[in-house]
């Protein structure tokens, strides 16, 4: 009698313990977020340490725990190599207990990791890359393209430049998924508006001497030199264009420009350039407050990808909390039901193809006289509503979209 009572009590306590745990299942007892970024290469200024800090800030602001379990943020350098990025993602998903991978600057890496996410059925949020594949042929319920993409850049800067009279274009394209994808999107916008693409020159990632490419652009006699590269590449190309007198007869269109690039060029060289960004630190009180906190931690103002890293991490953690679990399918469903209203966007929603819909903005770089403080670089030219900024579902190649 005593033995069976003890047994019964033991059984009851075991049941009681497991019953409590079953209502809030967090895999591995921790919610782990991996920031896969360019930590040391050409895009490290745009991604890098800032991206990691942004995600950490989100975890801290969320309270450090979700569903009673600790939130852990780890990071790794993908070295701008898709195979290294994919291998890291696999390792993180298989043995690292990572529930979500964020940032993914570099379109080649983002594409490779999107394939891994689809296969492993685990979450990724792309903030630092533009390639359209994330929401088209590589789409899945587990991949979200949050900040910006090539279509929105093309319909922002590209459209504005064409409508201002830039009918013939010559492209300076960085030779990998990002540049090629962006060139494709902008070419389409140019042709649809009645313009022509006169030619293109492809350059390797990390080119420092653009002299021969600028010469080719000048020889083409196009109205516009479209720079389908970013970061140090764009900065060097713009400098070379000025050095070789290309800006005397032709105009430059920097198709993806960051505030760090404007900072590197300096306002005298960058003034007047148009750029499309999803977010800017000086938009309102909320953005300024976040930017100040980021600046205190990192030493520079946040760019749109880093702000998106923060906002998307918050969205993910909120989804986990509301779903009551970090099970990928439950969280995916929750994320596509939620509306986001925070310092990144007033109204944001994840679409069925994984595209996070929010307003985009067209900016112009201020003249040195207009700038009143450090990092005071941009003035707002136009707001592009979400429905116009992003690829319509009717054109999508994603198999989740019901036609």
């Amino acid at each position, binding site marked *: 009698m005593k033995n069976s009572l003890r047994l019964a009590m033991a059984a009851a306590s075991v049941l009681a313990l497991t019953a409590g745990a079953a209502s809030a299942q967090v895999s591995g007892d921790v919610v782990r977020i991996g920031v896969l970024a360019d930590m040391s290469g050409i895009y490290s200024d745009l991604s890098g340490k800032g991206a990691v800090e942004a995600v950490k800030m989100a975890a801290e602001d969320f309270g450090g725990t979700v569903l009673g379990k600790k939130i852990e943020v780890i990071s790794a350098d993908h070295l701008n190599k898709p195979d290294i990025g994919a291998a890291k993602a696999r390792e993180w998903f298989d043995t690292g207990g990572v529930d979500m991978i964020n940032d993914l600057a570099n379109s080649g890496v983002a594409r490779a990791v999107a394939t891994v996410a689809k296969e492993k059925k685990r979450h990724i949020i792309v903030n630092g890359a533009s390639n359209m594949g994330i929401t088209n042929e590589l789409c899945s319920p587990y991949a979200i393209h949050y900040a910006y993409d090539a279509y929105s850049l093309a319909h922002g800067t590209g459209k504005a430049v064409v409508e201002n009279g830039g009918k013939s274009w010559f492209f300076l394209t960085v030779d990998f998924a990002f540049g090629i994808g962006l060139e494709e999107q902008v070419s389409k916008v140019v042709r649809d508006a009645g313009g022509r693409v006169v030619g293109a*020159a492809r350059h390797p990632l990390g080119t*420092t001497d653009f002299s021969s490419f600028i*010469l080719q652009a000048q*020889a083409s006699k196009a109205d516009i030199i479209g720079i389908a590269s970013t970061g140090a590449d764009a900065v060097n190309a713009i400098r070379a264009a000025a*050095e070789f007198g290309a800006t005397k007869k032709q105009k430059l269109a920097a198709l993806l420009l960051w505030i760090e690039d404007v900072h590197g060029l300096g306002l005298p060289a960058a003034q007047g350039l148009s750029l499309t960004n999803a977010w800017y630190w000086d938009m309102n009180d909320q953005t300024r407050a976040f930017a100040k906190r980021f600046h205190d931690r990192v030493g520079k103002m946040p760019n749109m990808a880093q702000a998106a890293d923060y906002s998307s991490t918050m969205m993910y953690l909120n989804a986990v909390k509301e779903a009551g679990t970090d099970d990928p399918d439950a969280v995916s469903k929750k994320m596509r039901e939620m509306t986001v209203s925070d310092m990144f966007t007033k109204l944001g929603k994840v679409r069925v193809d994984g595209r996070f819909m929010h307003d985009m903005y067209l900016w112009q770089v201020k003249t040195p006289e207009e700038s009143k403080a450090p990092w005071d670089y941009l003035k707002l030219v136009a707001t592009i509503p979400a429905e116009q900024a992003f690829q319509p579902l009717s054109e999508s190649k994603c198999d989740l979209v019901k036609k």
Partner: protein
Amino acid sequence: MDIFGVPHQALLGQVMLGMVNGAFYAVLSLGLAIIFGLLRVVNFAHGAFFMLGAFIAFLIGRNLGIGYWPSMIVAPLIVGVLGILFERFALRRIYGLDPLYGLFLTFGLVLVLEGGFRVAMGSSGHSYPTPPALRGALDLGFMMLPMYRAFVILVAVVVCAGTWVVIEKTRMGAYLRAATERPDLTQAFGINVPLLLTVTYGAGVGLAGFAGVMAAPIQHVNPSMGSDLVIIVFAIVVIGGLGSVLGSAVTGLGLGVVEGLAKVFYAEASTTVVFLVMALVLLLRPAGLFGQEEG
């Protein structure tokens, strides 16, 4: 006017840029050829000394305020001294051994130098400002040539000519040439051959450092700037003829132009055209265009 279907402005423009590249090739291959000619060492570290020259110019500019013009002398001197130290304490020990040892030693130096700078200075480039006196561009009609690049071509020609004069027309140069052919006899005449070797290595890498300072305003100063160039420079030294000073300088300039032309007609070939030429030259004239057959 179109030449072979290409507008003549585009052609001339790329040839001009090719000459600028050729200027760097010439100065670098000069140092390499001298070092190989006398020390019989394949100096894989040549690109790293080029990078060192650029970084020293950048660092003394940023931290000590030493401008471009003094850096043109100070940086190569520092590089030369570092080279001398390397030769005295490391390279000397492998003379006369299998050339493979020289390869490993100098290649190891490259890895150490590049890795060290990558850790200390990051892998993205640092920009070096063009000296104010050389800003602006010359309107050549078919293109705007930045003044600095025209200056680079001029300086390279002067340096190569000066080096040729030193080697062919001075006593020091005569000792050098003698030590290259018969080090034992030269030593017997009382000339301090080991000292000559040390100084030569220092001068050779000093030339590389000088090229690095010249390159700083054009390329961003970054740890891998040397390794991108050094492979082409090796090919040029082989084409020009190992040990021939004049050969490497002329070949360097010439191949810069050939590369520029390739960019106009078939851009993808521009990175490989130098090696195609090298293969051809080796088949037809194994000693190189200006080299002598080893008797």
